């Protein structure tokens, strides 16, 4: 037990303009869950990408069972028994779940792909992580949380000695997190060494054994998982951070957004609610309850079969994002890579995307104004970057998330819909985002917030709507809501509900 299965020594890795890792050490034992903790951009993902063969280190070495090993690519990692779940998923959106689960190892019969065997394997793997999804569904249609579960299933299929998980819980609700933890505990007891990255501090004591803290690319501490949260934050940020939810209820005004009887067959049914000026309404529910689908339909990103959406009393044409935006709606989508960001473009470019139209005078875009605004937002959110021209692709996950939120903050939408706004964002930056939500409602804007992070919904909303199986099943005032209360509603079995 004491002998390290995997040991990294003095790992150093530079990218143009930044030293992402600066002499990092990590020692990983069989049968432990080792948490990697650090701010956005501290180097966590870079470290695990070296262990999984995605990057080569500039300096330093990796040992397994005491012997130095070369991990040149994913194949080497697999042969060494290292399996990785990346923060940004590695799934092919247009292939089915089953094909993704067998990628690179398609079962063959007489030289042809054995579809039946592939489906069977997929079903087994999905059962292990306990998600109900048809293996023939294209991954594109899954939604972020289920994509995450498919990623997990894929990593488990490799029977690894070392399992690396980069923020697997960022998009999961309490229920899925529970299932995931059960799997992680079982693997740990079987002697697998597990690296676990998370920004949810309360998970650390629950699932972790030891914690390595990274700060600015250096490993600054190795502490037991039982270390108090305040102490962990201090180690990671270098100063204490007040982790209280800073929600400051604002004065309520007229309803800005009213949704009446919104229905799309197979997704959501007869959804009606209002959000008033100055109000933050939280939308809670399990994965697959239809929250994201409702949000996208309200914003005009998807069609709906029946119902109406009003902004400031004016009815929006269905399926028309542009009209929704003109009316003052905004949506921060859950899938930053697929829907939120132009990964190959610069940070400044991305931050200016929503305001591009408004910044056009006499046909010409006010590029200077756009840049000044972008610089201000980047500063406000503390985006860790080498400059506004850095490609968003090369930002750390949490910093990418800040860009998605930032581009909508710049737009000053009257009603902002936030779908998983703090996904992958570190504790200090979360508080920044909450402050910005307060500032929005103070100035009479309205916010509809979807989050799988229940404490966040409870802590930041004035009113909470709960969805289950495509229907609104309850409404709670913030001061009377509890986690258990919300969960009890979220698992409501709606009579005559759709089959999943």
């Amino acid at each position, binding site marked *: 037990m004491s002998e390290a299965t995997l040991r990294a020594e003095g790992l150093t890795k530079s990218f*143009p*303009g930044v030293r992402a890792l600066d002499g990092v050490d990590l020692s990983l034992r069989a049968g432990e869950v080792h948490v990697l903790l650090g701010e956005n951009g501290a180097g966590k993902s870079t470290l695990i990408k070296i262990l999984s063969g995605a990057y080569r280190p500039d300096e330093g070495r990796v040992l397994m069972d005491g012997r130095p090993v070369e991990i040149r690519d994913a194949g080497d990692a697999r042969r060494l028994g290292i399996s990785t779940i990346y923060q940004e998923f590695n799934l092919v959106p247009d292939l089915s779940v089953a094909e993704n689960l067998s990628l690179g190892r398609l079962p063959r019969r007489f030289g042809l792909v054995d579809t039946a065997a592939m489906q069977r394997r997929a079903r087994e793997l999905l059962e292990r992580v306990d998600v109900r999804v048809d293996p023939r569904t294209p991954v594109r249609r899954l939604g972020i949380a289920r994509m995450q579960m498919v990623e997990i299933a894929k990593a488990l299929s490799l029977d690894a000695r070392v399992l690396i998980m980069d923020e697997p819980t960022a998009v999961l609700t309490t229920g899925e997190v529970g299932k995931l933890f059960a799997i992680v505990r079982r693997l740990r007891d079987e002697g697998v060494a597990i690296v676990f990255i998370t920004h949810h501090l309360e998970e650390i004591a629950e699932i972790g054994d030891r914690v390595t803290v990274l700060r600015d690319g250096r490993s600054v501490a190795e502490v037991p998982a039982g270390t108090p949260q305040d102490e962990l934050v201090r180690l990671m940020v270098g100063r204490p951070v007040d982790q209280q939810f800073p929600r400051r209820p604002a004065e309520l005004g007229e309803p800005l957004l009213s949704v009446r009887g919104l229905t799309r067959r197979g997704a959501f049914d007869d959804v009606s609610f209002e959000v008033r000026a100055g109000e933050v309404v939280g939308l809670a529910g399990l994965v697959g309850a239809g929250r994201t689908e409702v949000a996208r339909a309200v*914003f005009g*990103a998807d069609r709906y079969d029946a119902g109406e959406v009003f902004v400031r009393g004016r009815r929006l044409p269905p399926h028309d*994002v*542009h009209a929704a*935006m003109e009316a003052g709606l905004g*949506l921060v*989508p859950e899938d930053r890579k*697929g*829907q*939120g*960001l*132009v*990964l*190959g*473009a*610069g940070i400044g*470019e991305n931050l200016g*995307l*929503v305001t*591009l*139209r408004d910044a*056009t005078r006499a*046909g*010409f*875009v006010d*590029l200077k104004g756009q840049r000044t605004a972008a610089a201000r937002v980047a500063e406000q959110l503390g985006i860790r*970057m*080498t*400059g506004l*021209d*850095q*490609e968003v692709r*090369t930002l750390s996950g949490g910093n990418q998330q800040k860009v998605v939120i930032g*581009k909508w903050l710049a737009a000053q939408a009257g009603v902002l819909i936030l779908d998983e706004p703090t996904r992958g964002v570190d504790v200090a930056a979360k508080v920044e985002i909450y402050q910005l939500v307060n500032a929005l409602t103070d100035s009479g804007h309205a916010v509809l917030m979807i989050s799988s992070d229940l404490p966040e919904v409870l802590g930041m909303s004035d009113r909470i709507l709960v969805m289950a199986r495509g229907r609104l099943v309850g409404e709670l005032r913030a001061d009377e809501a509890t986690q258990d209360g919300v969960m009890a509603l979220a698992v409501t079995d709606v009579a005559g509900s759709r089959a999943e």
Partner: protein
Amino acid sequence: MRSKQGGTDSRSSAWLAENGAVAALVVLVIALSLLSSDFLSLTNLLNVGVQAAVTAILAFGSTFVIVTGGIDLSVGSVAALSAITLAWTATEGGLPWPAAVVLSLATGVACGLVNAVLIAYGKLPPFIATLAMLGIARGLALVISQGSPISMPEAVSHLGDTVGRFLPIPVLVMLVMGVVAAIILNRTFPGRAMYAIGGNEEAARLSGIKVSRIKLITYALSGAFAAVAGVVLASRLASAQPQAAAGYELDAIAAVVIGGASLSGGKGRALGTLVGALILAVLRNGLNLLSVSAFWQQVVIGVVIALAVLVDTLRRRGTN
């Protein structure tokens, strides 16, 4: 758009990575001026400019399309159809030449709009829609002209002349169109939107960009640029020919890609495209001066295109 680097060494290599095509052009020019004493003469260089002009103008139009992640195979045919339209309406139709010019540009724009409607609303892949237009426009050019060249109106064929006895007008038109393309791409809303669409169409849509409308503009611009190229080509030859510019769409695409654009969209600049077109023209010219056979020229140019894009891909991978 690379981020800043520490040392001067890495900075210059970053510049090279950014401007690989420029470096290639410089190397090519130096090599050819050493190999052939005729290469560096003013007459010859202007000749290269004239040869590059038509490809470059077509390629500027293709740059818009490629930046959005699309492709336009119809530009050569549209160029021929537009020139034929001009010549036919001015001679057979008896229209005054300015009206004929407007009509010719309108033809190019119309072809582009048809492409765009098929792509944006009919959801056809750009490759298929514009492949169909390649056939349709070429066919119409042949139908209208009944297969034979039509002479250009006098006033328009001055476009093939030189100003001040030395500067060929095609070169001038190329530069003007290049500046127009650069301004559209860099400074206007549709231009910036093209990059966003090519980079991530869904993200662009959810940011309030009317993707279909921008695609209409994109392909219409490509058609308009093709029309200008067709008229310039016809003016140089003093007649509009239905078979003119056949296969030029591939040169245009090659120029854009050599100039650093990515066929998967989101990347590309007018200046790069100009350099790409110049590289192709310099190469052809140099191979002629060195009396390399036309057959071998094709081989060499093919190799150069492959090399240029290969180097580009490798350096991209290197920086990631």
